[in-house]
């Protein structure tokens, strides 16, 4: 492929250093503008009316009283949006179906979860919008609901979608059910493999839905003009995908919608899809005013995607020496109100850290009465590997094999063929395990009720459509316009560093900027840990094109063939003394004269990045369990992960630490709690408890660098792997501490205490 740049092992001046991020000063001074910080002249305020029921038929919606209220400028309901046929599109790591997207942003026949939008109003003040929202009358026929994925598959379960026939079953089912889709992967002969095993362990595991928990609630402001153009500011991980979804849902030309991405206050997969945007656009059209909409924290919890809650059954067989002979998994994943959970990816990740001959995995995608799942950092993988890493821990104890050894014995390596198809190129899994084996963390002595756990994770990583424009300004400084959102991890810093490295100039001479949808061609959303990988290739391509232009300009100035000019350390130089004696021309000198030598200098890239390097990590955790309260305290935590190449090591560490702490929260505290009527009971940060600074210790990091051959600097995606191992690692550590194996998440104080009491009752 023409755009593919191979890895080059070379001396680096900028890549691998730790400069201050280009968006940093704006963020420490309060200048950075996030979704809710944008205001437009004449703006009015939108508010969503949400279902109080988990499942109900919408019989009638009366808006006349709200519309009559002074100050109300627009009201929208299902009648304001066109019906959408079944049509699928990629939106981040999950696939969306437009028939469902339109129903999720505004209920049509039925409301399917507590918080489901049924109407929206826009008024001249927030207070009037609140009052108007209360004046909207909706007649519901309340229906029985179901939230648990296993209960939802029962024959007599309340049915969310009367037409939904399971995909992926042979023979095809004869009646509709909540089982939307079955995905299956198989390799080898699982029965034969289990027959050859000396030890077979089969267990069941349960996890609850958890939310991405970004601190910035969704916020958008839309302005629709008389000639049918839209200006939309929104906080998103992918403004081109938001544009495409709005255009499809509102039947507009893509070119008429300009999406300007604001600074993003966290997303973690949860800001890949539309929620407020189409409502704001239509209400702007109706009112002829810009419409600003922000979610409350309660709105965020009740109506934006948490990840799946799940039930999994995992079975593994191995020989006495620890070598796995067969592995099998069945994964039941909540999709939420509409089909399309992360179960396909969870299924592909379940055993992929291991080189196995006999594997069978089935994933069930199940519709239930809670918000539609959105991606959450390595969607599904932390759930599906929980059971696998737990059983491996059990096996290592049963067989007297060290937990790192048993993983090394089965480790995937270069040449291992995955059970879903591809064969791995160079990967760093074994290296992370070998580093773990040598790590000083393992020498730390443990006290009473303290224990240590180990678990590992894998994520695919992706590339996809990416564009960039690099302008060499007339003074030799450089502006890089990026179309792939910096979702927080610091990809703008990494892009500036790679450009500086290529051009041979100081990093502070390069200014990266995210462009809006009218300035660049399509970019996929920042998902699949693609940002630094894919955009890194694009900026390298663009920089090399700009260098070619500058070599031509130098050749012209010296009147020599372009082949006679090389680019070194920010200067054009004669390739050899045969070319002639010329003083090197700096980027500044060439740029200054660009008007006379052919015009402004730029480099572009419009690519589909391919060859993302798979990521692997090994985590070690020490915990202490308080037997009186059930509180699990994290004493020490170490993340070891292959990055391919750390462009900016401080922000790689930041990904490791942030991902691990999200995983710690998932393991120990976070869960959606529903009452008997299917209403979410903890839609706030007081009762949905994400980790705070005093909950966690310093998170140790160890960066492994096995270069990805398909990236000029060897980069692999890194953002997602760190959230995968913590649930399993912490469960294993709790077992090591108190001898009780927890197979349900969260391992919160009441649940740990209950398990301790049950164990002592059983013993007594």
């Amino acid at each position, binding site marked *: 492929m023409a755009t593919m740049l191979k890895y080059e092992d070379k001396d680096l001046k900028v890549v691998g250093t*730790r400069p*201050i*991020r280009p*968006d*940093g*000063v*704006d*963020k*420490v*001074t*309060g*200048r*950075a*503008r*996030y979704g*809710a*910080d944008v*205001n437009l002249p004449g703006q009015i305020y939108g508010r969503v009316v949400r279902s109080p029921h988990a499942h109900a038929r919408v019989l009638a919606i009366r808006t006349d009283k709200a519309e009559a209220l002074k100050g109300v400028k627009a009201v929208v309901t299902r009648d304001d949006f066109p019906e959408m046929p079944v049509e699928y599109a990629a939106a981040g790591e999950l696939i969306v179906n437009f028939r469902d997207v339109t129903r999720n942003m505004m209920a049509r026949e039925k409301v399917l979860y507590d918080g489901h939008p049924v109407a929206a109003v826009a008024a001249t003040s927030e*207070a009037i919008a609140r009052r108007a929202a209360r004046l909207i009358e909706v007649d519901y026929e309340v229906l029985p609901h179901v939230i648990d994925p296993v209960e939802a598959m029962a024959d007599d379960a309340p049915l969310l979608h009367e037409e939904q026939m399971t995909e992926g079953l042979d023979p095809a089912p004869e009646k509709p059910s909540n089982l939307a889709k079955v995905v299956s992967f198989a390799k080898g002969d699982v029965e034969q493999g289990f027959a050859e095993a000396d030890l077979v362990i089969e267990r069941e595991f349960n996890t609850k839905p958890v939310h*991405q*928990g*970004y*601190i*910035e*609630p969704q916020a958008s402001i839309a302005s629709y003009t008389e000639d049918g153009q839209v200006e939309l500011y929104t906080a998103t991980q992918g403004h081109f995908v938001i544009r495409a979804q709005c255009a499809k849902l509102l039947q507009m030309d893509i070119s008429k919608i300009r999406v300007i991405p604001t*600074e*993003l*206050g*966290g997303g*973690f997969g949860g800001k890949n899809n539309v929620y407020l945007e189409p409502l704001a656009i239509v209400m702007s059209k109706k009112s002829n005013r810009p419409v600003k909409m*922000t979610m*409350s*924290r309660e709105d965020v919890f009740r109506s934006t995607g948490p990840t799946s809650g799940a039930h999994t059954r995992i079975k593994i067989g191995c020989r006495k020496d620890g070598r796995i002979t067969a592995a099998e998994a069945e994964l039941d994943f909540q999709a939420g109100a509409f089909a399309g959970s992360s179960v396909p990816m969870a299924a592909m990740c379940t055993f992929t850290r291991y080189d196995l001959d006999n594997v069978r995995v089935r994933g069930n995608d199940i519709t239930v009465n809670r918000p539609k799942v959105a991606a959450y950092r390595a969607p599904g993988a932390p759930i599906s590997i929980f059971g696998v890493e737990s059983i491996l821990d059990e096996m290592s104890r049963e067989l007297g094999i060290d937990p790192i050894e048993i993983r090394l014995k089965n480790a995937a390596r270069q040449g291992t063929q995955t059970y879903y198809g591809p064969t791995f190129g160079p990967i760093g899994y074994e290296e992370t395990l070998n580093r773990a084996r040598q790590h000083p963390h393992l020498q730390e002595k443990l006290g009473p009720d303290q224990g240590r756990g180990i678990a590992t994770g894998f994520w695919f990583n992706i590339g996809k459509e990416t564009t960039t424009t690099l302008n060499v300004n007339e003074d030799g400084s450089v502006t890089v316009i990026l179309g792939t959102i910096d*979702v*927080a*991890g*610091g990809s703008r810093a990494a892009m500036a560093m790679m450009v500086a490295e290529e051009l041979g100039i100081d990093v502070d001479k390069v200014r990266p900027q995210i462009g809006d949808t009218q300035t660049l061609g399509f970019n996929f959303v920042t998902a699949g840990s693609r940002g630094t990988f894919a955009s890194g290739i694009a900026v390298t391509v663009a920089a090399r094109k700009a260098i070619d232009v500058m070599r031509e300009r130098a050749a012209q100035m010296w009147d020599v063939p372009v082949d006679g000019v090389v680019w070194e350390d920010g200067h054009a130089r004669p390739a050899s003394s045969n070319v002639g004696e010329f003083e090197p021309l700096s980027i500044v000198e060439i740029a200054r004269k660009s008007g006379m030598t052919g015009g402004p200098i730029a480099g572009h890239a419009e690519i589909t990045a391919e060859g993302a390097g798979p990521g692997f990590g090994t985590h070690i955790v020490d915990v202490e369990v308080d037997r009186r309260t059930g509180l699990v305290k994290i004493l020490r935590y170490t993340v070891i992960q292959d990055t391919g190449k750390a462009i*900016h090591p*401080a*922000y790689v*560490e*930041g990904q490791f*630490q*942030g*991902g*691990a*702490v*999200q995983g710690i929260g998932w393991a120990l505290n976070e869960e959606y709690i529903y009452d008997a009527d299917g209403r979410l009971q903890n839609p*706030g*940060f*007081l009762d949905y408890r*994400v*980790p*705070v*600074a*005093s*909950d*966690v210790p*310093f*998170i140790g990091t160890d960066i492994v660098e096995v270069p990805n051959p398909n990236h000029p600097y060897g980069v692999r995606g890194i953002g997602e792997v760190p959230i995968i191992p913590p649930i399993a690692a912490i469960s294993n550590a709790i077992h090591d501490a108190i001898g009780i194996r927890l197979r349900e998440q969260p391992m919160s104080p009441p649940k740990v205490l209950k398990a301790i009491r049950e164990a002592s009752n059983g013993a007594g």
Partner: protein
Amino acid sequence: MMARYHVTTTVNGDEVDFLCESDQTLLSVLRDELVMTGTKEGCGTGDCGACSVTVDGRLMCSCLVLGVEVDGKEVETIEGMADGEALHPLQQKFLEHAALQCGICTPGLLVASRALLERNPDPTETEIRYWLAGNLCRCTGYHKIVEAVADAAREMREV
């Protein structure tokens, strides 16, 4: 139209006045009336700390304070933290230690950290962690934030 109250106060050393409704929070006044959007709203219920400000030197969530309550008081926000072109040592150390990612929690964390160092110029790691326990950060895992605060404290003690 609800009656609006006239409030006179000091924000970052500047005398300002504004009109607000009786139930309008200080957060809403700062963001919507004074257009100082550096103070962020993450929850509106005092659980996340993104809206942290000080009122007469006391750290609070501006979403839990009414606009009318700050009449005659001194409010300090993130916008007043740097001294002209010179960043506050905490701001500088957050940058140097890579103690921010998405940055939505950063203004609140900086305001809270400054309030800590004014009371305790030499905090232990535990003291930093417990003081900042009211400020949620979902990106960093807190590691580099705690390091940055400790480093800023060290530097400020030396001056």
